[in-house]
């Protein structure tokens, strides 16, 4: 009886969807596997030292950072999502989209900006020194600490939680929240007893992105001098010249992440609910009056200022100081490079994410579950480590293909793929697939399988169903996915640095060039361009989202 089922399912794998998702998963896993395999090598003589002096401290420090940032982003992100979706107060329509803008600022740029602002020569201390004539104790202005890092990460990563939770609350929570209101619960009770529990799945989705981002960060923590797991990886590689041990550390990190994934799975699977009827009404906001309106407004304003306005204004001020020296024609080229590579990679990511998510929800087999999770793993690994995995795979691919190259008459050139943008795009896909995958998976989860089944019953195959039913219904999720992936890629640095072809500069690498040399003022212009591009995409995203709601 089992053999019968097995043989039948094998025949069905010939389905293009399954084949394509298998292919995608395999391609993405290859470099990750390369890293993981390192765990089985014999550790070398440095390992003892690493274990003794680096591992425990750095792991604890990382966990602490992740924990604090996680809690803060949830508090801020969920509170804002709740305020904005359940209430009306002054400028709420503005805050609805403005609170996504912090995503446009890469944390490393924010870190440079804030620490320079708060430094002795920064605007804030200057104000105290000259306007108020006060000499201030430096310890109150110490941004470059664990607290400062938590602040930076929270302010510039909370929109992940905000975005996903808000989408959920606005579209899905009406029935629950309205019935709680009718049951005489006050706002606080509703928030803690209804909103938090029902949006658990959305919150976990958002916060896991935050966690991965923090774990793989190197820019902020290395600038602030905070030892984390990433620091340990790079210390081992750049300091001890021991790539094997560095990759081994990365493999350990990866193992930890897989653990986290399983935990997330566990947390989420028990609360897998989609709305029980096809009628989902949008949540109707309540108008706030007087003090509470002012409080809501001020809270939103405060967060928006810290997370966007202040650093943005500061960067503009610096840009005024430096634009004459920095701006020239090459910036058009830089912007074009940044845009084109980000668009290509985003398209690939979204297509692949949609295919895999679709297959994994329809075929709820062990394989698709696990594969769908592993595929997102790249997000947690420091870019430079992925880069090495990707580089190894591509160079060996080139060696395999060298026969083909000479057949094509390209002469003795041996490296084709690994000197082209294909490698960089591929690396982006590995790194940011999770960013595209999570919203799409959540979108599918929200819609449920019933429409898909109804369509199949009406004689449409998987592909037609996807285009006629699934895609229109998860359009919002696909857009969120594209926008998040696009913004991430625009900001990405370590992969771009190592894997780009000759003469290929992006805005991020230009920013790095200046910031690395502590020329933060010169770095302001490419930073602003990155922020500008990200802002435009966020605005577009918002408009399309609104149109959809109005219909």
């Amino acid at each position, binding site marked *: 009886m089992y053999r019968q089922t097995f043989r039948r399912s094998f025949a069905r794998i010939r389905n293009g969807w399954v084949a394509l998702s298998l292919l995608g998963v395999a391609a993405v896993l290859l470099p990750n596997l390369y890293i993981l395999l390192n765990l089985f090598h014999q550790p070398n003589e440095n390992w003892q030292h690493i274990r003794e002096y680096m591992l425990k401290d750095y792991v604890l420090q990382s966990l602490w950072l992740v924990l604090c940032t996680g809690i803060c982003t949830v508090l801020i992100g969920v509170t804002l999502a709740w305020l904005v979706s359940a209430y009306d107060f002054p400028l709420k329509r503005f805050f609805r989209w403005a609170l996504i803008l912090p995503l446009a600022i890469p944390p490393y740029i924010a870190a440079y900006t804030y620490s320079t602002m708060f430094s002795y020569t920064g605007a804030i201390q200057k104000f105290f020194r000259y306007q108020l004539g006060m000499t201030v104790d430096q310890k109150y202005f110490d941004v470059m600490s664990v607290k400062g890092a938590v602040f930076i990460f929270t302010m510039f990563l909370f929109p992940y939680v905000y975005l996903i939770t808000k989408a959920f609350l606005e579209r899905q929570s009406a029935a629950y929240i309205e019935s709680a209101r009718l049951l005489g619960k006050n706002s606080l009770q509703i928030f803690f007893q209804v909103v938090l529990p029902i949006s658990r799945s959305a919150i976990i989705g958002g916060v896991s992105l935050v966690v991965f981002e923090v774990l793989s960060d190197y820019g902020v923590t290395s600038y602030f001098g905070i030892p984390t797991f990433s620091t340990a990886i790079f210390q081992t590689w750049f300091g001890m010249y021991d790539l094997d041990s560095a990759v081994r550390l990365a493999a350990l990190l990866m193992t930890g992440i897989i653990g986290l994934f399983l935990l997330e799975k566990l947390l989420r699977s028990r609360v897998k609910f989609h709305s029980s009827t096809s009628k989902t009404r949008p949540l109707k906001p309540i108008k706030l009056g007087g003090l509470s309106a002012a409080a809501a407004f001020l809270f939103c304003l405060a967060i928006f200022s810290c997370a966007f306005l202040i650093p943005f204004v500061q960067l503009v001020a610096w840009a005024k100081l430096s634009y004459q020296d920095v701006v020239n024609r090459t910036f058009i080229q830089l912007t074009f490079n940044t845009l084109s590579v980000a668009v290509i990679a985003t398209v690939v990511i979204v297509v692949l994410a949609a295919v895999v998510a679709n297959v994994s929800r329809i075929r709820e*087999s062990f394989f698709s579950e696990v594969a769908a999770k592993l595929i997102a793993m790249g997000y947690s690994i420091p870019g430079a480590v992925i880069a090495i995995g990707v580089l190894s795979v591509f160079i060996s691919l080139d060696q395999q293909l060298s026969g083909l190259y000479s057949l094509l008459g390209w002469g003795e050139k041996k490296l084709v793929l690994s000197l082209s943008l294909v490698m960089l795009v591929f690396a982006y896909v590995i790194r940011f697939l999770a960013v595209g995958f999570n919203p799409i998976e959540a979108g599918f989860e929200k819609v449920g399988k019933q429409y898909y089944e109804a*369509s*199949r019953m009406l004689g449409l195959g998987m592909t037609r169903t996807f285009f006629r039913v699934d895609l*229109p219904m998860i359009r919002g999720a696909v857009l969120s996915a594209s926008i998040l992936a696009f913004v991430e890629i625009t900001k990405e640095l370590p992969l771009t640095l190592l894997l780009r072809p000759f003469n290929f500069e992006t805005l991020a690498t230009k920013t790095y060039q200046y910031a690395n040399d502590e020329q933060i003022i010169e770095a302001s212009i490419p930073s602003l361009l990155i922020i500008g591009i990200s802002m435009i995409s966020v605005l577009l995203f918002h408009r399309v989202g609104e149109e959809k709601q109005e219909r």
Partner: protein
Amino acid sequence: MNFFEIRDLSFRYQNAKEWTMQNFNLSISQGQIVGVLGRSGSGKSTLLRLIAGLEEPAGGTITIAGVAVVGQQKFVEPEERGVGMVFQDYALFPHITVSQNIVFGLHRLSRAERAKRLDEMLELVQLRGYERRYPHELSGGQQQRVALARALAPKPAILLMDEPFSNLDADLKGKIRQELKEILNRAKMTCIFVTHDNEDVDAICDRVVYMEAGG
């Protein structure tokens, strides 16, 4: 050989220890309306999903209109079985209108044929004038009729209905039962009808099957 036949059908959900269904048999002749009664958890809905091809049985065969859709090495995908289904909560596509919902399964027909069929269906379920509405703009009873029209439009060999009245008001039920009976008779539809309500069965069905868990 009957028009519709199930032999020795067995099924259990992934990771479940207990069989939802073991060696289940059922045969129906053309035009019959069969009610399936049983408590919740007895596998009624699972039976419909197995017939529809939305779940894959561990063993057994299913034959629809003389064609084996599940057999030894055979599994026909749902879209090729010629089975219509009215879901418990209707699953009307929220992003398209009533008429688009009804013609959704008619993609193999020409434009003119499609219009004709739409017209017939609107007539059958008496929903003229609602073509351009979206599902959420309809009442529960109207939604149910759209769902029925959508399922019947491609002329399925057999119609499956999963608790079609569970979302309706009590005073509506009597009237709608009557309507449904008439529609099904007019369409000469073979139908399997899952419910937990004896009154449904009395009003509509020619025959009743009782289901118990694991059996």
